[in-house]
């Protein structure tokens, strides 16, 4: 078995048996990156030296019989929006091109504590604003299944890295679908945890009330293992929740008896491509064949979710990104007239068009005289959407549906049409607005051979349910074992 095609569990077994070292695994990943990342563009920064040094440490400790963390020797790629004290953290923005945080995000600290090997930082839409990584100021990222297409976004670099066999595990963040949609487009597992499950400390904020860090992996067990490592209460994040973290892998192989699956009628309506609808229906049928029962449900306010999201997220973004003024760190223009001009010139030059669009949207929505009509109203809609989910989960364990209306679209397809791009977030945004967990599972391919994901949603802190249901599907299908073929 190729080290770069293996999943996390297989790699751990190899390392535990002594059939491969962490250095072997890390080197295989680095070789794969070296061979193919010029084409894919998954990584903004690869830290080969640090990664190999860490792998050597793990190998030495393993040889010495020392106890090791749960991710010992496993290469992990991290979306370049999580602060790392030993690597730059750019958010794929000119603004932070040279920013070196003096501290690690909580997620990074936990990865280090689990003895993971941090390979490098992956590409994203600037400040996580986008669904295609086309808003990255650094480089495009291409879908390993079809390099003319997007890997999805904003965690497209992380999803592409896993799909390209550059790492078995990657960390992404999901504000409106930014883990699940690229997972779907790249044919990998991607899970957005419950809001508050994973600390946001050191996650550079896009929309604070929606942002959540989560795992991407080439199988469900890998995602469970990675989530296990990064979840947990953090006193440095006031929105981090004090709920015990269960052992996500302990009961993974135990199918959920009588799983009740809610099928929202609003999910299978206009806008959904036939290819995707068919894959999703077939995946649900697989679960049904395992004893699951399906229940028709309704999420009546779902159709307002895109509108609500594109008021709430930009409002928070307009505030969160105001700190990039070039005074203390980040980009500052070489010449300017006065203080105000310094702000205008620096931000004008260093922030991309989509980021500016959202800052302006949010600034408008929070302005005196508009606040009630836009921001406050969006918050009310958010509450209604949460109530929709609460009501639905009274009768079902999970809600199933598509992740995105289509499989991966062509690079450039929506570049001049941001609104159409926004509308593709329709199926994923609800989970962020409601704060509930969601997962995208490889569930089929289109006639073009592009991966399609099945989305499952559950109640707060029911990540285990999602993972067990995902594993049920995985045991009956082979979608997760497909690997993209890269041109050499």
């Amino acid at each position: 078995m190729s080290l770069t095609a293996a999943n996390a569990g297989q790699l751990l077994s190899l390392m535990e048996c002594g059939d491969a070292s962490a250095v072997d695994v890390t080197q295989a990943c680095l070789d794969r990156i070296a061979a193919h990342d010029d084409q894919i563009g998954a990584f903004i920064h690869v830290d080969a030296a640090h990664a190999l040094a860490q792998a050597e440490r793990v190998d030495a400790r393993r040889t010495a019989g020392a106890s090791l963390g749960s991710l010992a020797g496993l290469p992990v790629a991290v979306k370049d929006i999580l602060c790392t004290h030993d690597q730059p953290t750019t958010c794929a923005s000119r603004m932070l091109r040279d920013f070196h945080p003096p501290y690690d995000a909580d997620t990074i600290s936990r990865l280090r504590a689990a003895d993971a090997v941090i390979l490098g930082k992956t590409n994203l839409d600037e400040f996580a604003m986008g669904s295609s990584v086309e808003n990255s100021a650094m480089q495009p990222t291409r879908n390993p299944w079809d390099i003319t297409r997007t890997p999805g976004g904003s965690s497209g670099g992380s999803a592409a890295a896993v799909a390209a066999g550059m790492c078995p595990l990657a960390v992404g963040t999901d504000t409106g679908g930014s883990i699940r949609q690229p997972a779907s487009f790249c044919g990998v597992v991607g899970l957005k945890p419950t809001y508050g499950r994973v600390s946001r400390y050191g996650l550079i904020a896009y929309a604070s009330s929606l942002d959540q860090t989560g795992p991407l992996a080439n199988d469900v067990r890998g995602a469970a293992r990675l989530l296990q490592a990064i979840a947990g209460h953090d006193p440095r994040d006031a929105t981090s929740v004090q709920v015990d973290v269960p052992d996500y892998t302990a009961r993974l192989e135990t199918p959920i008896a009588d799983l009740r699956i809610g099928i929202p009628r609003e999910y299978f309506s206009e806008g959904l491509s036939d290819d995707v609808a068919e894959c999703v229906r077939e995946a649900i049928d697989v679960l049904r064949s395992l004893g699951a029962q399906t229940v028709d449900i309704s999420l009546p306010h779902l159709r307002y979710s895109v509108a609500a999201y594109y008021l709430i997220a930009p409002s928070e973004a307009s505030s969160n990104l105001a700190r990039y003024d070039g005074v203390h760190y980040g980009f500052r223009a070489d010449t300017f007239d006065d203080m105000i001009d310094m702000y205008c010139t620096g931000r004008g030059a260093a922030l991309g068009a989509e980021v500016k669009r959202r800052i302006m949207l949010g600034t408008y929505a929070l302005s005196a005289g508009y606040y009630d009509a836009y921001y406050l109203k969006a918050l009310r809609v958010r509450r209604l959407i949460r109530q929709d989910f609460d009501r639905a989960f009274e009768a079902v364990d999970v809600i199933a549906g598509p992740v995105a209306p289509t499989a991966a679209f062509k690079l450039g397809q929506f570049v001049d049409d941001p609104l159409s791009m926004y509308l593709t977030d329709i199926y994923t945004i609800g989970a962020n607005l409601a704060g509930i967990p969601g997962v995208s599972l490889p569930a089929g391919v289109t006639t073009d051979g592009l991966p399609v994901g099945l989305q499952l949603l559950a109640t707060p802190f029911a990540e285990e349910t999602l993972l067990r249901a995902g594993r049920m599907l995985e045991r009956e299908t082979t979608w997760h074992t497909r690997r993209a073929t890269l041109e050499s």
Partner: protein
Amino acid sequence: MNRDPAASSNQPANDEWTIVIGLEVHVQLLTNSKLFCGCVNRFNPDQPNEQTCPVCLGLPGALPVMNRKAFQLSLKTALALDCQIAEFTKWDRKQYYYPDLPKAYQISQYDLPFSHDGFLDVELGDQPDQAQRIRIIRAHLEEDAGKNIHDESGRGRDSQIDLNRCGTPLLEIVSHPDIRSAAQARKYLEELKLLLTYLGVSDCNMQEGSLRCDANVNLHIPRGDEVVETPIVEIKNLNSFRGVELALEYEAQRQWREWQSTERRLGDVAKVTRGWDAERGVTFAQRGKEEASDYRYFPDPDLVPVTVSAEQIADISDTLGERPAARRRRLMSEFELNRDSARVIIDQGAEFAGYFEDVCGVCGAGPLTANWLTQDVLRVLHETKARITDFPLSADVLGELLTRIAEGQITTNSAREVFNSLIDARQQSGPASPEDIGRLIQERGLAIVSDQATIQPVIDAILAENPQAVSDFQNGKQGAVGPLIGKAMQHIKGADPKTVRQMLIDAMTG
């Protein structure tokens, strides 16, 4: 005790207008750490940017977590101001760009402050029995900004930014426009400072910026049946009590002149912000940064709302202790002090008032103790720049000394001699004990001698030596007895002057 000439402006200076003032006071709270991070909360201008971390630097990804101690101190203050406490309060972002504000927003409280609707009673020097109630609109908690330091050498060097102050817990206390004179504004601030220092929530050091004040002021001008209001002016960053008073007096005159020349009323122009130039003694128009700003307040999604239970309020109320105004009243009733003495003692702080009560507990003589504390003890404290907690004489010792006076055992002059020798000896002999009082009186022969058998020979000798004085007295010159008393006292230290005087008179008339 109000000897300040400016107190004469308690009343409107004239019948032509009334000044109407509301104050916004910012108080830095005495917490160990900052409001939303673990950095030390300490005034430290000499080591700029040393007391900072990713949170108060506003670095990407850093998140605030509320300091519970700061919130409790705020609750304590609000309860002491008789404010209503909100059961539910939240944090809002006040957004504006400024280099000393690294997040480009200040975490503050907008529409749901944690407290509202309180009051502070302020006594005025020349109206001793009439306290004026100044209503408090609200008190809310927020984080302080950093400090921009501009080159004042005129050489155009870069401005510098010190973020040590950034994130310091700041309590903003907003009064109703209930204040009607510059002197009253000052009194309000003094009373507020006294309360805050009694509560131990702030050191209120205005030089270091731990208490800052903005004033909103306009004039109400009677015109026939109506009262015309002049445009409200906000005077920013008043950093001394005297400055507040002078700025308001100046501003009243300025607004009166402006009204006479422009007749502009409230609403005719946008709210104006003026600065106070203490050097020149004038207020000056500031550029219109504030007027047009829309702070785009919205709830901070990084912080969770705070709920306050009735039990919490009760627990904190139990820790309030006696507030200065109540203690002042009690000193007057329980220890028979006059208003000035009570005020001076209370103004020195809770420890000083406690010392007063302890000394009284020993000697039982309120006014006598008050005299000694406000004169002798305060003098020593001023000379040595010490606090009452460092005063070398314990309440037991001073109480013992004052007991001797109260019981007529020694004269005030003798007591002062003992007092001074104990103060002078404090370096060599360690803390004095009450027994030292008796010993010193003994050693120095300071006990009042009223035994006539001891005094009589001295009287006889003095009369013999001063025939002129005797004849003057006998010719009706009452004053001639004074110098003779003095001479007798020189001979017998501690002689009771009353007894000496009577014996002299008896001898000369006899």
